[in-house]
C-alpha cells in the first residue's frame, strides 16, 4: 500500500516537473500564434455580415480588397489593384489589377489560374446583382452594402480586359472609395464558385472559404477553434508564422486567465484593470483611439418607445458618468453624439444628454406612463465599445428603478441575440458600433437610415424621412463645409428625437504576450495578422 502512495507521489512529481521544464518550446508552438477570439463567426464571408466577430476572424486574414486605407497617412493605398483612376466625373472608377496573385490552394480547392478581372466582377456581383446565381446563397442578405447604399450606388461592374475592371456608379459619391477599402468589399474566387456550382454545393463558398489573403483556411470547430495556416504564395510580405489559431473564448475572465497561463498569445477586449492588477512582466496591454460608440437604442416601433418624450425621459434617468467609471474604469469618453469627437463632422454645440432623474420622472408623467415595465437586452460578448453590457444593464436597471421603471435584463448567445434583435423582439438594447472607415457617413446610414431598418442594422428600428433626407444630401455633395453643416443638423435632430442614447466612446485595448509582434489593430475594423511574428526565447538571447 505504501508503495502505491510512493508511486503516485512520484508520478505527480514528474508531472509537475514536466510542466516547468526549461526545454525550448516544441516547433509547433514556436511558429504559431493563438488568438483568443470572443465568439463564433457566423460565416467565413464578411460580405454577409456586419458582425465584428466575423470580420475579425475573416476579412484581413483570408481575403484582400482592391484598395486599402492607410490610417497613418490618411490615404488609400493599392492592394489587389495596383492603381486606379477616376473617370466620367467621378461616376466611373477603373482598377488595374496586380499580376500573378494566387488564390489559396487547399484540400478542397486547387486554383488553376491567378486573380483576374473575372474574380472581381464575380465578387461584386455576388451582392450587387440580384440575378447572379450566387446572390441568394446563404440568405441573400448583404447588410453592410444595403445599409451604406453601395448596392444602389453601383450601377454595374464591367470587365475591360483580363486585368482591368471598371466600376460604374449611378452618381458621384464621396464615400465610395472609403467603402471600397472596408473589410466587407473582399474579392472571392470565381473559379472556386464555378467548381462549387458544378458540385451542387454553392453554400460552401461561405463555409470553406478561398481567398487571396495571407492565411488559408484549415478547419473550424464551432465553439472551439478556427485554424489557419500561412498562404505560401502570398503576393506581398506575409506573416512570420506558420499557423494561426482562433481559440474561441467568449468569457472575458477566462480569456484573461488564458493569457496569463500562456494559452493565448493575444486577446481582444481584455479586463484592463484586472490585467494591470496582475502586473505580469511578459504581458503588454496596448490601447488605441478607436472611432466607436456604445449606445442604448429604443425599439421605436414598439409602444411606448414610439413616443420621443418617453425616450428622452428614459435617457435622462441614466447616470452615464457612473457607467464610464465602473464599466470602463475611466478608459472612455462620455459620448455627446453618436459621432466620436475625433470626427471632422463632430458637433456638440447645444447638444446635451444630462442626468436628471427628476426631470425624467416628470417627462414620464407627462407622457402618461407610470409603472413602466421594459426589457434591456444586453449583448453577451465584449466589444470595443462595451466591455460588459450585462453589468452596464445592471447599473441602468437600478438607475431606472429610481424613476419607477422596472427593467428586466435579457441576454442570449451572441448569434441568437442578433437574430432575435433583427426580428425586433427587444424593447431596448445596449449595443454599439465601430466605424469601418473614416467617413462620418459610416456612423449614420448603417445605424439609423430607413434602409438599415430592413437589414436589421438599425437597432432602434427608427425611420425618419427628414433624417434620411439629410443623410442623402450629405453624401451627394463633395464640399466638406456643406457636408459638415448637414451632419450637424442630423446630430441635432437625433438629440431631439433620441431613438438612442449615446453612452461612451471607448479606447480600444488589446493584451498580448511580449514576444508577439506585427499584429495590427487598424482603427477601422478588425485585427490584422498579416505581419505577425513570434520571437522565441532563443531569438531574444541572440
Amino acid at each position, binding site marked *: 500500500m505504501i508503495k502505491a502512495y510512493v508511486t503516485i507521489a512520484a508520478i505527480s512529481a514528474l508531472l509537475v516537473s514536466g510542466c516547468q521544464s526549461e526545454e525550448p518550446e516544441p516547433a509547433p508552438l514556436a511558429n504559431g500564434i493563438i488568438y483568443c477570439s470572443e465568439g463564433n463567426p457566423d460565416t467565413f464571408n464578411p460580405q454577409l455580415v456586419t458582425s465584428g466577430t466575423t470580420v475579425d476572424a475573416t476579412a484581413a486574414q483570408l481575403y484582400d480588397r482592391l484598395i486599402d486605407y492607410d490610417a497613418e497617412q490618411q490615404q488609400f493605398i493599392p492592394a489587389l489593384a495596383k492603381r486606379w483612376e477616376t473617370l466620367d466625373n467621378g461616376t466611373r472608377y477603373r482598377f488595374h489589377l496586380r499580376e500573378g496573385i494566387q488564390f489559396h490552394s487547399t484540400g478542397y480547392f486547387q486554383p488553376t489560374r491567378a486573380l483576374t478581372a473575372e474574380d472581381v466582377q464575380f465578387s461584386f456581383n455576388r451582392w450587387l446583382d440580384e440575378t447572379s446565381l450566387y446572390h441568394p446563397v446563404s440568405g441573400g442578405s448583404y447588410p453592410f452594402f444595403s445599409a451604406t447604399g453601395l448596392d444602389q450606388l453601383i450601377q454595374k461592374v464591367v470587365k475591360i480586359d483580363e486585368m482591368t475592371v471598371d466600376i460604374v456608379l449611378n452618381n458621384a459619391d464621396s464615400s465610395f472609395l472609403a467603402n471600397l477599402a472596408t473589410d466587407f468589399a473582399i474579392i472571392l474566387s470565381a473559379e472556386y464558385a464555378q467548381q462549387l456550382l458544378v458540385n451542387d454545393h454553392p453554400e460552401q463558398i461561405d463555409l470553406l472559404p478561398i481567398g487571396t489573403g495571407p492565411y488559408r483556411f484549415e478547419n473550424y470547430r464551432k465553439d472551439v477553434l478556427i485554424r489557419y495556416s500561412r498562404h505560401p504564395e502570398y503576393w506581398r510580405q506575409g506573416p512570420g508564422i506558420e499557423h494561426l489559431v482562433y481559440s474561441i473564448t467568449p468569457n*472575458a*475572465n477566462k480569456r484573461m486567465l488564458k493569457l496569463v497561463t500562456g494559452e493565448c498569445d493575444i486577446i481582444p477586449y481584455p479586463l484592463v484593470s484586472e490585467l494591470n*492588477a496582475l502586473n505580469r512582466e511578459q504581458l503588454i496591454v496596448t490601447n488605441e483611439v478607436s472611432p466607436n460608440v456604445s449606445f442604448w437604442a429604443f425599439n421605436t416601433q414598439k409602444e411606448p418607445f414610439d413616443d420621443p418624450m418617453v425616450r428622452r425621459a428614459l435617457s435622462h434617468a441614466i*447616470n452615464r458618468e*457612473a457607467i464610464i467609471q*465602473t464599466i470602463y474604469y475611466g478608459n472612455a469618453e462620455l459620448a455627446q453624439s453618436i459621432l466620436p469627437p475625433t470626427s471632422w463632422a463632430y458637433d456638440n454645440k447645444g447638444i446635451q444628454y444630462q442626468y436628471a432623474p427628476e426631470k425624467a420622472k416628470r417627462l414620464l408623467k407627462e407622457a402618461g406612463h407610470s409603472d413602466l415595465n421594459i426589457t434591456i437586452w444586453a449583448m453577451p460578448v465584449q466589444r470595443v465599445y462595451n466591455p460588459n453590457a450585462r*453589468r452596464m444593464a445592471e447599473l441602468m*436597471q*437600478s438607475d431606472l428603478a429610481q424613476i419607477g421603471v422596472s427593467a428586466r*435584463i435579457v441576454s442570449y448567445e451572441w448569434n441568437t441575440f442578433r437574430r432575435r434583435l433583427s426580428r425586433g423582439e427587444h424593447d431596448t438594447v445596449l449595443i454599439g458600433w465601430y466605424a469601418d472607415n473614416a467617413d462620418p457617413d459610416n456612423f449614420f446610414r448603417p445605424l439609423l437610415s430607413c434602409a438599415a431598418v430592413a437589414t436589421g442594422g438599425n437597432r432602434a428600428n427608427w425611420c425618419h424621412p427628414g433624417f434620411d433626407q439629410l443623410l442623402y444630401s450629405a453624401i451627394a455633395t463633395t464640399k466638406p463645409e456643406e457636408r459638415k453643416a448637414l451632419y450637424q443638423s442630423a446630430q441635432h435632430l437625433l438629440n431631439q428625437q433620441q431613438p438612442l442614447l449615446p453612452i461612451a466612446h471607448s479606447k480600444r485595448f488589446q493584451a498580448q504576450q511580449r514576444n508577439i509582434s506585427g499584429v495590427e489593430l487598424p482603427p477601422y475594423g478588425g485585427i490584422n495578422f498579416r505581419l505577425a511574428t513570434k520571437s522565441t526565447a532563443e531569438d531574444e538571447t541572440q
Partner: protein
Amino acid sequence: MPHVNLYHHDETPSPLQLVWKSFRARFLSMAALYLLLAMILLVLVSPLLAPFNTSTQFSDAIALPPSWVESGNMQYLFGTDDLGRDMLSRLLIGGLYSLGLPILMVAVSSLIGMSIGALAGIDRTIKYQSLSRLFDTLLSIPSFLMALIIIAILGTGFNNVAFAITLSLIPQFIFVTRNAVHEEWHKDYVTASRLNGCSKAYLLYRVILPNVTPTLVMQLTVSLSVAIMDIAALSFLGLGIQAPTPEWGSMLARSLDEVYLSPWSMVLPGVTLFVTIMTINVVGDSLRRALKERVNS
C-alpha cells in the same frame, strides 16, 4: 402474595428520543445544529437586518474592501462590489434565494415525495416489486440533470428554476420513504400490530412513522444540501437565478471578472455557500451516526 416492586423502572425512551439523546451528546453535532438554526433565522429576518438595499449602488464606494482590511470602511462591513453595492446586504438577502428557497423547495418536494413513498412502501405485490426495481433504476438519474432538462423545456427564470429543482428532488424522497417504510412494515412488531387488527392508516402514523422519522429527517438534510448545491451551480452556469438578484452562485460567477481587483467579492459568497452546505452535511452526518448508535444499542 403481593409482588413488591423492588426495582424502579425507567421510562423506556422512544426511538426518537434515543436518537436525539445520542445526537445531543456530541458537541460538533449540536454546534452544527445551532449554526444551521441561526442561519435559517438570519435568512428569515434578513430583510430587516440588511443595512442597505441590495441594488443600491454607492458610486463613492466602488469595490471597497471589507472593513477589517485597512482601506475598508465600517459602514460597509463586508465591503462593496464592483458596482458599489453593499456585500453584507447582498449576502444576507442572497440567503433568501440560496438557503431560504431551497428550504421551501425541499419542504414542498418532501411533502409530495413522502406521501407517495409511504403509500408505495406498504403495498407489496410481485408486480409492484418488479416495477419498483425499474423505478429505482430510473431514479439513478441525478437531480441536477433532471433540473437541466426541465429548464431546457421551460427556459430560465426564477419560477422555472424553483419548479425544476423541486420536481427533481421528489424522486429521492419517494425512494427513501418507500424503502424505510417498507423495511419497518415487515418487521415483526408491525406484523404483530397488524394481527391485532390495527388499520393501515393507524399503523402508518402511529407505528411506523416514529420509527422512520430520523431516516426521513436525514434525507431532508441530504436533499437540502443537494438543492442548495444545484441552485448555486445552475446560477453559476447562468441557467439559474439571473445576475442582479443576489444569489450566492450568481454572485460568485460574476465576481470572477474582478478576482484580482476585489478578491473578497469572490471569496465571501464562496465561503458562505461552503459553510452553509458543510453545516447541513454535518447535521445530516451526525444524525446518521446517532441513528446507527440507536440501532446498535
